[in-house]
């Protein structure tokens, strides 16, 4: 009777905006130290799901459970408890920093909120975090606008790690980066997972990225999960026509655009 508890459990999540249903009956579990991909095209509801996890949207119905405790409380205490366990990395690493603060200041701020203490200790921790994500002290003294996209995303990861969350939600976290930088960030994320045992919810439309970084995946379409399972297995033998379509949409030598378009029409007609 020593079954590990899921660190994050989502059950029957529904989010409606007016008459539009963005997320429709979504459920999944995330075990400690694992990585889950949420795959889908724009408009599939994957970003809305991520935003609900981060507390940026309130679900119309359904629950999100962190370490066995339902989230959604609005009190300062609940807010801090949730933030201490789940953090989010945004797609736009530039926009996710206050343009007036240096990187080190931005990283130190959540430290002060979550672990009040002497400034000296925070400074040391910031240096440690910068080092952990492969940024120099010099980069820490820079303003966000002086860093490259990859450096900013490293800084965003450092800032989230400072809170020592159990779950990191990454919303298209590498989509805005060059391919070579993408690879660096993905490698970094992989290392961090092995070192810290953190879990990832990795939201992406990029199947190659998802294949690299996740163990299991769910495929979302029109707000519903249409397929779920091990990432390798899903990508090797997709069961749902939509997943097959996503795979076929990846440019390759024997790419048949006609067929992709035909399949899409057939799928939309269903």
């Amino acid at each position: 009777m020593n079954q590990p508890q899921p660190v994050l459990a989502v059950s029957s999540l529904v989010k409606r905006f007016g008459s539009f249903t963005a997320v429709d009956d979504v459920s999944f579990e995330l075990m400690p130290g694992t990585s889950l991909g949420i795959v889908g095209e724009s408009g599939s509801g994957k970003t809305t799901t991520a935003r609900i996890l981060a507390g940026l949207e309130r679900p119309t119905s359904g629950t999100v459970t962190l370490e066995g405790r339902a989230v959604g409380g609005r009190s300062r205490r609940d807010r801090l408890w949730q933030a201490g366990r789940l953090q989010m990395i945004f797609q736009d690493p530039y926009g996710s920093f206050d343009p007036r603060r240096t990187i080190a200041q931005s990283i130190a701020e959540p430290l002060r909120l979550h672990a009040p203490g002497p400034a000296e200790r925070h400074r040391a921790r910031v240096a440690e975090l910068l080092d952990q994500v492969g940024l120099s002290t010099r980069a820490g003294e820079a303003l966000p606008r002086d860093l490259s996209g990859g450096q900013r995303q490293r800084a965003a990861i450092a800032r989230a790690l400072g809170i020592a969350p159990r779950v990191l939600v990454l919303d298209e976290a590498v989509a805005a980066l060059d391919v070579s930088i993408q690879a660096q960030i993905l490698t970094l994320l992989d290392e961090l997972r092995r070192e810290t045992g953190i879990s990832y919810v990795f939201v992406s439309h990029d199947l190659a990225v998802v294949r690299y970084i996740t163990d299991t995946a769910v495929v979302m379409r029109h707000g519903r999960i249409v397929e779920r399972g091990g990432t390798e297995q899903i990508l090797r033998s997709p069961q749902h026509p939509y997943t097959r379509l996503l795979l076929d949409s990846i440019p390759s030598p024997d790419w048949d655009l006609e067929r992709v378009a035909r399949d899409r029409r057939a799928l939309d007609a269903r």
Partner: protein
Amino acid sequence: MTLTIPRLRAKAARGRRRRPLTLVLATAFLVLVAAMGLLAPVLAPHSPDETSLLNALAPPGTEGHWLGTDSTGRDVLSRVMHGARLSLLAPLGVVLLSLVLGTAIGLLAARAGGWVDAVLSRGMDIVFAFPSLLLVILSVAVFGPGLTAPICVLAIAYTPFIGRVVRSVAIQEGARPYLESYRVMGFGELRVTLRHLLPNVLPVIIAQSALSFGYALVDLASLSYLGLGVRPPDADWGSMISQAQSAILQGSPWSGLMPGIAVLLTVVCVNLLGEHLGGSISGKRSEET
């Protein structure tokens, strides 16, 4: 999610570094006027109330009266200098009050959204629809002459002028993910708004305030011109123009022209400065990406 959101104005990116001559002149002039007002008791060659009927309506350039005298022989230069105090202080009061009110209302409307935003925005629209001068004259009719009531009423009349801009800039800036990232990190809404949103929209607020300073100066001068603002023997530029009317008819426009020029130049300079402040923000922004 977009990487950049549309910026206010794309021009003036160069203004900050080059510091155009007009800007230097405008700043210098404003400093000069402020210093004149402050040091009027020391610097003014005459008392502003000292009459000398023998010397009435002297043209500018007269020995001892560089800017001439008015219809009762008072030194125009001294009166312009003393008048600067009320002419600058009163609009400053208006601007500071409306700045605080407008910023609070604008930020609240932008961050709360929903019905709070709807109520505050419509409220500002209603206030905005009234000509400010009319409101001020109304306030004088109710509260009697003096400057306190007009300053307060003008401040309210100008609140939408600042509040609407603050609201729209705050909504624009608020769409940027860094504010959301602070929320995800567990920071409270109030702290995020005051510590992160406000400093990032402050330059726009200051620029807008500078513009409303010019309007307030003109409105208050108009009020004094109508004889409803400053009460004699106090004088501001508006009341000086008003008192010079008969002299203008007698063929000596000087005593009215000088305070008029003071109003004109001050307003032009303040507007230049405000426009530059607004411009330098968009300039700084365009360096971002």
